[in-house]
Every structure is written in C-alpha cells, then in structure tokens.
C-alpha cells in the first residue's frame, strides 16, 4: 500500500528548486517504486565537482517506512560501503519520520558527505583510513570522485542510462543533444 500520490507530490516538489539545490529525483519505473536521486558533491570536500547517483526504492509502508537508498556511483566514504554503496545514516533507519521526504533524506546524505562519522562506520576499511591516515583518505576519496563521479566515457553514460530503463538509441540521441552531459540527458529522458 504505497502512497503513490505522496511520491508524485515529492517529485514535483523536488523539481521546483532543483536548480538551487542541485538535488534531483527521477523515476526509474512507471509505478514510482524505483527512483534515481542525484546529489552534487559538497563544495570544499573531496567530493566537490562530482555528481552522485543514488538508487532509491520506495518500500510498501512508505511514508511510514524509510525509502531505501544506496549509492550507485562508487564513493569512498566511511559511512558508505565502497563495495555496495550501502549508506549508514540514522534518518534512513530508525530516525526516519513521515515528516521527512526523499529530498530531505538526500539533503541528509549530502550532509553526510560533508561530515563523515568514522566512529559509526559502514565501511570499516575507509573509516580506519580516515582516522589513521587522513591525508591518504582525502586523496583516495578525491581520486574516486574524479574516476567515478564525473567525466565518464560516452559508453559508460549510455550504459548507465540504458540500465535505468531507457532505449539505447533514445539514450544516445539524448546525450548527443545535451552536449555529452548525461545528467542533462537524463532530465530530458525523464521529462520527455
């Protein structure tokens, strides 16, 4: 019994200030249970300049149950699994409330990028590096941002968008008409 109309309202709400927030949510499936969230890496962090994609699944009990969120862009962060993209964040677990939204949850994820909590890690290896060898952590995180969160090759972009359920030809023309920017292309695909 998912509250679909609520999800629809959330998408519209998110759309309203996406230019100022940089945060986007696009449906991946027609029934709105699978979505893709996009957040820009916070300025002044090793994630600056990167664009991070987050897989969102709306559970049956939404908005009483939290949305399931997982990074699909690889990211090096103590509270995010470098393997699976799983996120350790209280508002996505027991501190979730129906008063929160997909957007506020993504804002919290973005804030987590700015303020890692290595003492409550999701990825023990990254957390250990963060605490014992901070400089190495910063350069690794920055390298991962460069490698995975921007400037992906055309084939990577095509693959990603096709995986979201769009047709290959449709994706290629959208990327081309967006000057190679796959996020703009995604918006076009979502809106068109």
């Amino acid at each position, binding site marked *: 019994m998912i509250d679909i109309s609520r999800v629809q309202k959330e998408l519209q709400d998110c759309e309203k200030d996406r230019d100022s927030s940089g945060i986007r949510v696009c449906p991946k499936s027609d029934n709105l249970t699978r979505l893709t969230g996009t957040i820009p890496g916070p300025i002044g962090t090793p994630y600056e300049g990167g664009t991070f994609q987050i897989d969102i699944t709306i559970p049956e009990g939404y908005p009483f149950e939290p949305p399931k969120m997982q990074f699909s862009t690889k990211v090096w962060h103590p509270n995010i699994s470098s*393997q699976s993209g799983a996120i350790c964040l209280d508002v996505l677990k027991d501190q979730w409330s129906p008063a929160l939204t997909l957007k506020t949850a993504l804002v919290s994820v973005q804030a987590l990028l700015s303020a890692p909590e290595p003492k409550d890690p999701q990825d023990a290896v990254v957390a250990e590096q963060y605490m014992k060898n901070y400089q190495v952590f910063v350069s690794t995180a920055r390298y991962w941002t460069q490698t995975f969160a921007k400037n992906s090759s055309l084939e990577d972009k095509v693959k990603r968008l096709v995986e979201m359920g769009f047709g290959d030809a449709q994706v290629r023309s959208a990327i081309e008409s967006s000057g190679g920017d796959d996020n703009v292309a995604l918006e076009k695909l979502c809106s068109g």
Partner: protein
Amino acid sequence: MQNQNEVVKDDKVEECGNSSAECDPSFQQEEEESAKVPYVADKEPLSSLSAEYKAGSPILLQKIKILENQYIAIRRTRGDGNCFFRSFMFSYLEHILESQDRAEVDRIKANVETCRKTLQNLGYTDFTFADFFALFLEQLDDILQGSEEESISYEELVNRSRDQSVSDYIVMFFRFVTAGEIRTRAEFFEPFITGNTTVDQFCKTSVEPMGEESDHIHITALSDALGVAIRVVYLDRSSCDSGGVTVNHHDFVPVGTTNEKEVGASAPFITLLYRPGHYDILYPKPPCKVLDNVEK
C-alpha cells in the same frame, strides 16, 4: 585482499549504528511480545491488573487496591513506543462517540487548524502532513451523528483503532501537532529537554519518528496544542515518607484554559495509567449516587 577484507567487514557492519534498537535481540523479543496485543485492546475489568501483579511488590498491590476504588476498567495498548498517542487517540474519540459533544468537536477542529498554520509557519511542506490532518478530521466527522448519516458504531471505532492505515496515521497526526507545539514554544520547552539536545533535534529524534516514546514534554505539548486536558495516574513503586500509600496523578491542563467550567469542576475526560515505560487507558467508576446527593 583488500576486497576480501571489505566484504567481510561490510557484512559485519551491514546493520550499522549498532546502538539502534533494531539490532538488539532483547528489543526484538520485546517487539514480538508487544505485537500480540492489538494497537488498542478490549476493555478489561480492573481486576485484570491485580491478577498481573499477584506476586508483585506490596506497594504495587496496595496501590492497585486504591485504583480499584476509583476505576472500573482498563484498556491496554500495544507497547510499541506509540502507546501514549494511541491511548489518547482512542480515549478522545471514544469520548466524542459517547458524548456526541458537537461543541467540543468544533473547538478541537479550530485548534487543529491553528496547528496546521503552525506547521506551515515552521516551514513544514504541506504534503508531508496534510493527509494525516485530513484523516483525523475525517474520524471526527464520522464519529458525530450527522443530520442524515448515522455515526460510526463503537465496534467500527475499535476496528479503525486497530487498523494500521487509520491508527498509525492518527498517531502521526499527533506527532506532527506535538512537534509543532514544541517548536513554536521552544523557549518554554527547552529547559525540559535533557542532555545536549536542541529543541529541533529533540523533535527530529524523539517526536517525529514513529515508535519514539513519549514523556511529560510530549503530553504537555499535545494537551496544549489541542486544548484537551489529560489525567495521568502513576502506578510505580514510589511511596510517601509518611508511610501511607497513595496513588499519584497529574492533570495536564492546557495553557490558556481559564474558564472555570473547563478546568475546575470535573476531572479531565481522558485518564491514562502510566507504568514506567507504558501508557494504558483507565475508565473511572461512574460518579457515586451518595456523592451526587451530597452535592445537591
């Protein structure tokens, strides 16, 4: 090699935040226990309470005896962290169903509209709370006898209180109202919040999420926001120094209630029994005839 390490560690920390209650096996057990009780159970004679404490402390047994003089029945609610709100919900709606007090419904509706504005002023997005408000108002309308439509039956009220899609929505409605009241009167509530927690954090972590238990702050805020007095009777092991055992109660009287008729004369129509960590509903004995005569 690193990968291998990580997979193992990932598995281990899959449920990160080990402090969270979900990971605590004893909590799970508790949760399973509590799931056997419906959100709102059937009314039981008060003697079921003493049966529960057969081998309990003498102080508790004495206190239950005293309660038996004043109260006739108890209605248990599920111990899922929402018990205060759930008890308040049922008790209030049941009162309206029985009294058909249209003036009270009009009064609370006006308060609900104020609460809605409060949330809007605080910057809550409308769609996050609108459905919860609508569902509560809908219950009020269904419970009052209309000019053409019958009010819902007592059984239907019980059913709805046990139906997650109604019951949880109303609990969440109360949580919104409570958070709105605490945030707008932050200066008043701040001194009561313990630890290094701001009013904002308190609302985010202890009021707005479902399943977070209520204390005096929640009760005061809800009572004030909706303008409904609540009596809480305390059943615990405390006793007075003088040796005599009494059962303490506290009346939460909404701020701004100055009308004598509202405050002084009668006890609040909502009475809850508090045992450390849990709230249930208490039913007072009907006023005694002798007392009636004395008053006349």
